[in-house]
């Protein structure tokens, strides 16, 4: 084999260039093929796509909880008002676990020590437990029917979204815009008045390539 360099007299055969190119490309592809897992700091904001994700859940629950605590009636009360959660209705076009959102808001409010919540989802279990106790447990530990606390306020909300895509044209990327709005209200059960309401927005733009490997 004649070995010559172009600048210093070395010259490779075309076959060898092709071989090494294919080898490099293969190494490049296979290097990306091994799965790996790493822990992610919960404070990190990582969005893999433009849809609703865990970062949005945290941001919205933080903002809403903060708004409830800083406004009337909660901020004006010296005692802890009792609230029941009736959920957030999902009016977006994605499957979003809105219960996770209300649970997160409720946890923040309870931890603040300024609000109390009724456990609405466990009502049936609580009633069953109290019925079981009647005549079967010691009077000291027995819970009588009618001992529960009534709610003063109802917490409800709506999560809606608007999605827009770039108009169709000759392009290499596709842009889309996602707008989410969470509206929540605290309603006085006695008077049916909305004593507190707030809305929080998230807007995100995504840019996807239309051509890939």
């Amino acid at each position, binding site marked *: 084999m004649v070995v010559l360099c172009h600048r210093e007299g070395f010259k490779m055969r075309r076959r060898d260039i092709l071989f090494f190119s294919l080898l490099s490309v293969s190494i490049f592809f296979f290097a990306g093929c091994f799965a790996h897992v790493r822990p992610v700091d919960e404070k990190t904001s990582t969005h893999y796509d433009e849809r609703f994700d865990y970062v949005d859940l945290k941001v919205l629950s933080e903002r809403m909880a903060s708004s409830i605590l800083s406004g009337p009636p909660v901020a004006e009360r010296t005692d802890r008002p009792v609230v029941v959660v009736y959920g957030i209705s*999902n009016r977006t076009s994605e*499957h979003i676990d809105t219960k996770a959102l209300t649970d997160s808001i409720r946890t923040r409010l309870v931890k603040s020590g300024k609000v109390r919540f009724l456990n609405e989802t466990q009502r049936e279990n609580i009633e069953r437990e109290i019925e079981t106790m009647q005549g079967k447990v010691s009077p000291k530990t027995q819970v009588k029917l009618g001992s529960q606390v009534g709610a003063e306020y109802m917490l409800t909300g709506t999560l809606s979204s608007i999605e827009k895509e770039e108009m169709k044209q000759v392009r290499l990327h596709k842009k889309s815009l996602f707008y989410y709005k969470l509206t929540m209200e605290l309603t006085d059960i006695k008077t049916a008045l909305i004593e507190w309401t707030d809305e929080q927005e998230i807007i995100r733009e995504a840019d996807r390539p239309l051509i*890939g490997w």
Partner: protein
Amino acid sequence: MRRLSFLVLLLAGIFLLVNGCATPGLPGSRNLFYKGDLEEAEARVESVRRARGRNRVLFLMERGLIYHTNDRYEKSNRDLLEAARQLETLETVKVAEQTGSFFSNDLLLTYRGEPFERVLIHTYSALNFLKLRKWENALVECKMALKELERSPFSYSQPFTNYLAGVSYEIMDEYDDARIEYEKVLKARPDIPFLKHDIERVLAGRKSSGRGELICFIQIGKSSIKVPFEVFVPPDKRFVLPEYRSRNYLCRRAVVAVEPVCSLPVPSCGGQMSVSSESYLLTDLESVAGKVMKERMEKEIAREVARLAAKERISREVERESSELAGDITRIGFMLLESADTRSWQTLPAKLEVARLSLEPGTYGVRIRFLDAKSRMLEESFFEQVEVNPEKVVFLICRSVL
């Protein structure tokens, strides 16, 4: 000679790759499905551990529908939602795949479903959620189906999806959106008598009538399937395109008969009476499939012509560099690779219909009778103890494959 060997090996490799892409278990499951043996069809398709990557979406759609027909709504949704997720990642055009398929055939491409099939993934998922009484999730799927419908580059409508969306919006008290969808259906199917009542009802908003609703979603027949048809271009060129061909089925329509379940004579049964209703055609999937293929034909032919030209160019290059024999072998190799992409969602029905009845609250037995062209009964689905409550909707879903 080395170049020739390399090219022959490459062509052979592509040939093996392409012909090895059938998903095991699917053809057998489809046959069992259409024989009416749903349990066996389900067992056969469940035994497939993992469908190959290129046909994974198709496998999930087929299995999802087999589960749905067998009333396994949770399992059906698991597959259909996974298919929808996979399709989102397929929006990016893969250069390597496209290049490979350009020099061989479209079977190398990952199956993305026809536009109407992609709408039906969400439509069936919405039906599953309605049966599971998850109204919000059903509405989310309807919205996704409508979005998919809007995105389609072809001019066809799927009134069944619009009607399902109207029903889902109405359950969630979104009366304006419900009215819009019902009006779209009325425009496409002005012959359906209950549509005007539906529109009047949502215009009135939430008003207590004291009655309940029974909605039967009925699926009839077998969808068209794709078959190859060859086009010969003299003297020695050939390309193969897919076309839809209808399959034979006997059922032409369905009738819903509702009888009160009551031990007392009828006048004492709280005013419940026997009623019956025809089911009305909303979407004719055979017609939709034919329209889509027709609109796509020009683009398909242009693509095939470009493909033929590129292959001929390569063959001539091989002929020039090696020999006439080498060129002919290359041409034969390319010709053998010519194959139409006949993949399609074959467990779909031919027709999607609906029957809607307003009933006094009570318990009913519901018979859905499937009739042939001469109104002879082919088969019957019987739902006993159907509870109809005031201001509530009850859904029944059934299918005839005969």
